[in-house]
């Protein structure tokens, strides 16, 4: 017993180091594996989000012209969509205000109070939380294209997992050929301007600058939201697939406002997918 105590005393620093390291690593894995464990020890908690909010208030003064430009662009885009819709609908079709027409997606404006773009584990913090009806697994789109999905919500803030995080996955569609692919962001290969699309069949005709959009199959985003443009095409002859690098539509180093996307029919969609 005495020897054991002496041994512990001799290696107490090493043992203490290993003990703390064990706590740190268990934090790391519990954070990776569950969203709920991270509610209090992430940037959506009260203290950290308040600090980011202060910083955002200062920053926003310097970015007002940029934010105005983004909103003006968004307005122009929405107007264009609205006007085109009026032409398309005509009197023989159901009007959007009709009770027969189900509005699946709702958009809620949110300000980005903190965004990371240069790490391998990037995150975004927005100023809307559970009291605004925000829930996890909702989409978040910017003024030009998709940004990410909500992974963590506190009362007044929410954490968004952006496209530029290795944990983010989404199915996308190549507009010209209608081929489906899997969007991911690969650590060490992609930076904040690019992402990778796998599993595009080798026979699909893909050209540089072609647009990839969302498929809507996961129920997080509506279909046809721009994701990125083709930057580089590589062929994997063995797998008979193409690996495509895209330039993301959203500039993650310069995003200030966005819209949380709520799909009212998502639970129904998941339910039916479960039954398949």
């Amino acid at each position: 017993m005495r020897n054991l105590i002496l041994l512990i005393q001799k290696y107490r620093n090493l043992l203490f180091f290993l003990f703390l390291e064990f706590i740190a690593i268990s934090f790391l894995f519990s954070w990776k594996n569950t969203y709920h464990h991270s509610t209090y020890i992430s940037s959506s908690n009260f203290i950290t989000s308040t600090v980011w909010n202060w910083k955002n208030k200062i920053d926003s003064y310097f970015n007002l012209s940029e934010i105005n430009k983004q909103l003006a662009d968004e307005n122009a885009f929405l107007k264009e969509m609205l006007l085109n819709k009026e032409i398309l609908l005509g009197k023989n079709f159901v009007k959007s205000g009709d009770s027969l027409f189900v509005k699946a997606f709702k958009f809620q404006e949110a300000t980005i109070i903190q965004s990371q773009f240069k790490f391998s584990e990037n995150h975004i913090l927005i100023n809307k939380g559970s009291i605004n009806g925000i829930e996890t697994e909702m989409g978040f789109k910017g003024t030009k294209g998709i940004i990410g999905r909500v992974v963590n919500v506190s009362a007044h803030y929410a954490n968004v997992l952006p496209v530029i995080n290795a944990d983010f996955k989404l199915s996308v569609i190549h507009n010209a050929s209608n081929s489906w692919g899997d969007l991911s962001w690969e650590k060490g290969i992609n930076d904040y301007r690019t992402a990778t699309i796998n599993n595009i069949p080798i026979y699909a005709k893909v050209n540089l600058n072609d647009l990839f959009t969302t498929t809507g199959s996961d129920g997080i985003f509506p279909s046809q939201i721009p994701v990125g443009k083709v930057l580089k095409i590589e062929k994997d002859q063995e797998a008979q697939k193409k690996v495509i690098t895209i330039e993301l539509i959203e500039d993650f180093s310069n995003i200030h406002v966005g819209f949380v996307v709520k799909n009212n029919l998502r639970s129904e969609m998941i339910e039916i997918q479960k039954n398949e």
Partner: protein
Amino acid sequence: MSNSFQHIYWVIGLLFFQLFVIDVIDLGTYSSFFTPLIFSYVIFKRKLETTVTELLIFAFIVGFLVDVFRNTIGLNISVLLLVTFLRSRILNLISAREDFDDNIELNLFNIGILRYLFYYGVVLFFTMLYFT
């Protein structure tokens, strides 16, 4: 007591500098791969007489604060603990222990520019290695 307050000021100051200045600098394509982690300075400047246990607790707290702000819970804690544990070995690389007084802070002026750059360079190298 004033010493403890000094440490707290240093932690808050460096944390804010790391998060609001260093982390915001955009190095283009290299941004994803290289971001200096300067907050470890607050641990490495501590006097030689500081016990390893005290340093490890300090490293845990600083790492935790950075992790909470960066949403990387556990990552910065574990790297800081590792470099803190190796501090005395890194110091042995640059000089014999007798070269420094136990009660001086290990900063640029007390141990010399070259030695300090090497000392802190090794610490940053270990940190970056761990992250990659």
